[in-house]
């Protein structure tokens, strides 16, 4: 520890610059306007809409809450919690599961897997095969390889690709509204 403090003391100028930057960043966060859409918030809005236009198989207790889960993207999870936490879809309360553990994924109704790592997304999808969970990830590859919905950016705007057969096989019903706006892909 002593060597770290000593090093910082000697590099006074670096500390000054770092301090100025930190102050600037803090001020900017406080001042940033309300009219802004971060990519995380946009993604969260899409996920919320996917949940709005999807029907899951009937569950024993008809008004059990809807669980929305996100893996590996804190920003999107935070945005989804702010956007949809406490809302209700088709009479069911929406709960965003914070920091969901891998062993509890089966209790999710919608699962978004962030990250470029195709292997881990494939592994999770394989584990959950057959479960009525709407699986969403990034890229067109995901719905071609066992997933249901892939979010992608085309020409600076967000789009999504859907594999309707995968959804059908697991008992998840996607509204024709979603299918009409999506790019349809097959296995």
């Amino acid at each position, binding site marked *: 520890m002593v060597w770290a403090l000593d090093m910082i003391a000697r590099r006074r100028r670096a500390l000054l610059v770092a301090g100025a930057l930190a102050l*600037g*960043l803090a001020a900017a966060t406080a001042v940033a306007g309300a009219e802004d859409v971060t990519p995380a918030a946009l993604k969260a809005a899409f996920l919320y809409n996917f949940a709005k236009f999807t029907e899951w198989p009937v569950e024993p207790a008809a008004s059990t809450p809807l669980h929305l889960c996100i893996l590996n993207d804190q920003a999107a*999870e935070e945005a989804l919690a702010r956007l949809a936490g406490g809302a209700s879809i088709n009479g069911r309360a929406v709960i965003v599961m914070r920091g969901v553990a891998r062993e509890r994924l089966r209790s999710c109704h919608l699962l978004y897997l962030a990250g470029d790592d195709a292997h881990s997304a494939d592994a999770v999808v394989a584990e959950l095969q057959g479960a009525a969970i709407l699986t969403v990830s990034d890229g067109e590859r995901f719905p071609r390889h066992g997933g249901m919905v892939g979010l992608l950016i085309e020409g600076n705007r967000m789009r999504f690709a859907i594999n309707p057969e995968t959804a059908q096989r697991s008992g998840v019903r996607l509204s024709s509204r979603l299918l009409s706006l999506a790019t349809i892909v097959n296995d």
Partner: protein
Amino acid sequence: MRKELLAISAVLSLAPGVAWGQARVPDLAQATLEELMNIEVTSASRREQRADDVPASIYVISHEEIRRSGLTSLAEVLRLAPGVQVSRVNSNKWTVSVRGFSAPTSKLLVLVDGRSIYNPAYSTVYWDTEDVMLEDVDRIEVIRGPGGAMWGANAMNGVINIITRPATETRGGLARVGGGTFDAADAGFRYGGGMGALSYRVFAQAAGHAASWLTSDTRAHDSWRSVTTGFRSDWSRGRDAVMLQAGATVGQQRPMWFDTSATTSSGEASLAQSNTHVGHALGRWTRSSAGGAALQVQGYFDTNHRDELIGLYDRRTWDVDAQYNASFGPRHAFVAGGGYRYLTETLEGRGLYRFTPSRVRPGISNGFAQDSVSLAGGRAEVTLGAKFEHSTYAGSAFQPNARLLWKATPRQRVWTAAARAVRTPSLVDRGLQLEYPAIAGPFGLPLVTGAVGNPDQRNEGLINLEAGYRINVSGRLTIDAVAFRGWYDDLQTQEPPVAPSMAIVNGLPTLIALARYDNLWRAETVGIEVAARLQMTHAWTIDGSMSTFGMTPHAGRSLDTNPALVDGNTGAQQWRLHSSWSLGGDRLFDARLMRVGRLAQAGLPGYTRLDARLEWPLARRVSAVGSGQNLLDSLHRESVPDGGLTVTQLPRSATLGLVWRF
């Protein structure tokens, strides 16, 4: 100092004018899907997929970041990552290093789509022959610290992984043409197409670069040019995916090597031209199995030829690698793999440079395994891994590592890692034979000085400890910080002879005093690297990074006084601040301020650099791009003389170009 503070406030506080042609953004909770699909996404979503849960010092330079940087060479683009020191030696040579030891760049592994571009004989990376088409780079992963366990020896201080975009994402055409004051002229063309599950692209680019400056009124002689062509194809069906790619680059450079054939040992810079050509072919097959496991097999052939003043170099590499990923239950993610690489390297010294042996044919086999275990209900993850490598030329290396990740809160991550890494000696380290022409020595006898390699040169070793912290504040601000400490052993030194030896040369008694390569230094390094990104508004992002570095050497028995070993030729601190605006209508403006600190031991002052870029669409598919680099100084120097190259001064420069997408 004042100049910098002014520039910082300018970059930070320029109100972006959210009102510049932006449609009013709807309340997201009430927006319809159609409205959501109409919102302009100004920073690609991929940027937000940071590697939150990777227990390593990783920074991903995204495609979007490369595009908006206004930079045209791979080595320059690496400046965007924290903790990476890029020094441009002259117009066609760079040294790139991470966490010290920048002379030469011997401790960094650089891969393009899994193919190593490290030059084993010279223990460095020659960036002048790496002419990747930047528009088709998907991302550059910069991993600081030992990457030994996954990527092998010579990844001691870091791994740079350049990944190109799959052909499925580059359908359509792109043509680019431009020119400027320093990047004199360039043109690039790519066309991508496909049929069903098969996608392909072909591309070609040519560039000419001007000379830099020796003094404010003397031009240097270091211009260079290159032509590159290549293709990539991707095919997938069911559970199989196959990727094929090939490329070739032909170039001519004037590196301005010191001409050692002069009568004094410090000759003039030579105007000799180097001719280089490199080529490669690579194939990769991936098969995903039903249970989520995946097997990947990759093979490549690489040829590298450099015809230069100091020597004629030829290298051919054949490499085959396999990797298997599987999950065992919900708690274990396992990766194992191995490979074999066969190289033939020939280095025929010219002038006074000679290498013994002049040819090596090492076969390098390696195996690695890594397991990540999820604990405490998913709140923590422990990763253990190791790589074993054996080279018929350089011996064996064992590199273990252990990592721990703790998901402290939903928005914070803490991680720590301990690793051991190795650098194996090169053809130059073991076989160099450099003798300058004799000069008048003591007692009237001729004296020959120079350097000689050590056939028993050992591996350099590193034990590294690091810890990191990541936080996401309100979904808009992310901060990623790392602190590290490294203990280096058996560092390479050049030992001056204690006393000259006597030999009979051409019938005359001659004193011979050759410096000999050895492994006699130890050193400790310490530092902190921080990166942060703040999404100010829908149209404005600021990101920045800062790194500090310190080295404590221990000379031990060594008599080597080379300053490179004392501070590693690395500035004590660096920082970068970047402001990125979308002005509406696909107009993009970026400004970047960077500071590279002073090299204390070498006496090189630090420099502050301002770059800017403006992209302005002219028609539906055509954009004009203008950029400027080094706008604050008319000339500045970034490096110190080392390794025989002439160091020049780099000018302020600007380029203008057109891009047509069809």
